[in-house]
């Protein structure tokens, strides 16, 4: 039973309320539409011409001065660094959210969450700078040149961890209110309840949250630019330097014109499409999990 299906008696005030709220929602949707339209228009010429260009946007070489605009290597770079960052950040993130809510003394748990909120406010420049002067030289000792896929993934993981913890916490808190009392009344341990009841119950909210962070990782620019090496190539190992689509835009947009600029907009468009697909998948998965959980109870 959703809140919306409980009907109030509707005086005029509620009708205006409805209109005002609908306007808000409409504006938000309009913003997205605007961005989509703008990006598509700006990259249209290359996207369309691509069919004839033969190779065009879908090759691995990127040499603007030679008129070669291949996005493939950078697409792989973006995907690789983001997925790796998520693999590194999600397990600790979940553990931290669970620990902070269920096992830590309440004061410490609140302090921990406050710290996470703070860490989320640190600009990406600071993370990137630290990565540049501390992480990369350290990695360089084990695997030159240091600035690499791994460095990028580590810094990204560091950056998405705080919000991941906070959002996981929100999801778990809601699940806790609904299920913990009942489970413990049946004699289950907290850890068992968390594992078997709360996590599955929170999953429909956790999965989109995780994917939102994947989207955020894909979109991160500054920090990756400073530590990932920025060489346009397909990575053959974790220690290989890579360039992401976002770092590419940041590095070259100010200096680009004509076809070069269109290619950069096209890479932005590509990112947007990637994220859209990701979110569609996330929604689909979340719906499936929610249906499964509902059927099980």
């Amino acid at each position, binding site marked *: 039973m*959703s*809140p919306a299906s*409980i009907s*109030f*008696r*509707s005086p005029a*005030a509620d009708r205006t*309320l*409805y209109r*005002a*709220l*609908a306007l*808000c*929602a409409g*504006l*938000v949707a309009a*913003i*997205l539409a*605007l*961005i989509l339209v*703008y*990006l598509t228009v700006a990259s249209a010429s290359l996207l369309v011409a691509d069919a004839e260009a033969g190779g065009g946007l879908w090759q691995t070489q990127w040499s603007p001065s030679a008129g070669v605009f291949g996005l493939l290597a950078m697409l792989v770079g973006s995907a690789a660094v983001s997925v790796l960052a998520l693999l590194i950040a999600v397990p*600790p993130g979940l*553990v*931290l959210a669970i*620990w*902070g809510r269920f*096992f*830590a003394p309440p004061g410490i748990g609140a302090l921990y969450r406050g*710290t996470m*909120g*703070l860490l989320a406010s*640190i*600009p*990406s*420049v*600071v993370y990137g700078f630290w990565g540049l002067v501390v992480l990369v030289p350290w990695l360089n000792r084990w695997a030159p040149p240091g600035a690499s896929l791994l460095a990028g993934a580590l810094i990204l993981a560091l950056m998405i961890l705080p*919000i991941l913890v*906070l959002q996981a916490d929100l999801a778990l808190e809601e699940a806790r*209110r609904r299920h913990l009392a009942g489970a413990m009344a049946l*004699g*289950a*341990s907290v*850890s068992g309840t968390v594992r078997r009841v709360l996590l599955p119950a929170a999953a429909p909210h956790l999965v989109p949250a995780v994917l*939102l962070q994947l*989207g*955020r990782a*894909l979109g*991160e*620019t500054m920090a990756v630019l400073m530590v990932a090496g920025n060489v346009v190539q397909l990575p053959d190992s974790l220690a290989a330097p890579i360039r992401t689509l976002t770092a590419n*835009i*940041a590095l070259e*947009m100010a200096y680009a014109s004509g076809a070069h600029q269109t290619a950069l907009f096209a890479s*932005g468009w590509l990112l*947007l499409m990637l*994220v859209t697909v990701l*979110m*569609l998948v*996330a*929604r689909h998965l979340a719906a499936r999990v929610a249906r499964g959980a509902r059927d099980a109870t």
Partner: protein
Amino acid sequence: MRPDQTDRAADADRLHGRWMGIVALATLLVPALLVGELLVEGLPALSLGFLFDAPADAGRAGGIGSVLVSTLWVLAVCLGVALPLGLGCALFLVEQVRADSRLGRGLQLVLDILGGVPSIVFGLFGNRFFAVELGLGFSILSGGLTLACMVLPLFIRAAEQALRQCPLGYRRAAVALAVSRWGFVRRILLPVAGRGIALGIVLSSGRALAETAVLLFTAGYVTRWPESWLDSGRTLAVHIYDLAMNVSGGSTNAAATALVLLALAIGIQGLAAMLGRLSTGASQ
């Protein structure tokens, strides 16, 4: 709810609690190192003068007073636009739309995608739309509006979750008492969701404060004291970027500025926590 009922359950919990605590500590190690370095490098440069003077010598001398003011203005514009719009949208999702309807799912999808747009794309969009199309130029207004677009998904998600926490019983009681929907929203729903909404504000401002690329293309680079919304002004994050990446010898002041930014974030958190407590108090 503390784990101290049955023995076996309690033992398992103690074990899990222990290793999770270790993970928690270990995970904090790296950020602690980072903040530690910031403190070591930046603390000596902090002073009252630093907070109130404008930057001089390309930021290596003087302070960050004007930058601080610009940042607060940008944040004000961002939150001033995103909060009402976001709250309205969240209320729309909770109150007017059934979760499994096409409209509901569509809107959720829109929010997810908006939340996934890379920040640099927002920078380009903000520059082309707000600065050029709407003629706002490099200004605090351009920056704030673009940031508002960016934080909307984050805030709406947090607000929506907070709103959904309100027990259905309250709602049914309101209907039974012939309260209008607007009255219910204003007097019961919002206060109850207060804490969650406050958290949303914190997340949004954190995200807004941390943004660099977007603001470089919209609010600009100028270090002067802003006199109007249409003035260009750099934010703390942009200042840190410039000092760290562009100006020789700027790293000390960059670290000091980062510390000020952290302090600002703490302040916002504290404020939001207070607001949250006030509103939950009001609902009781």
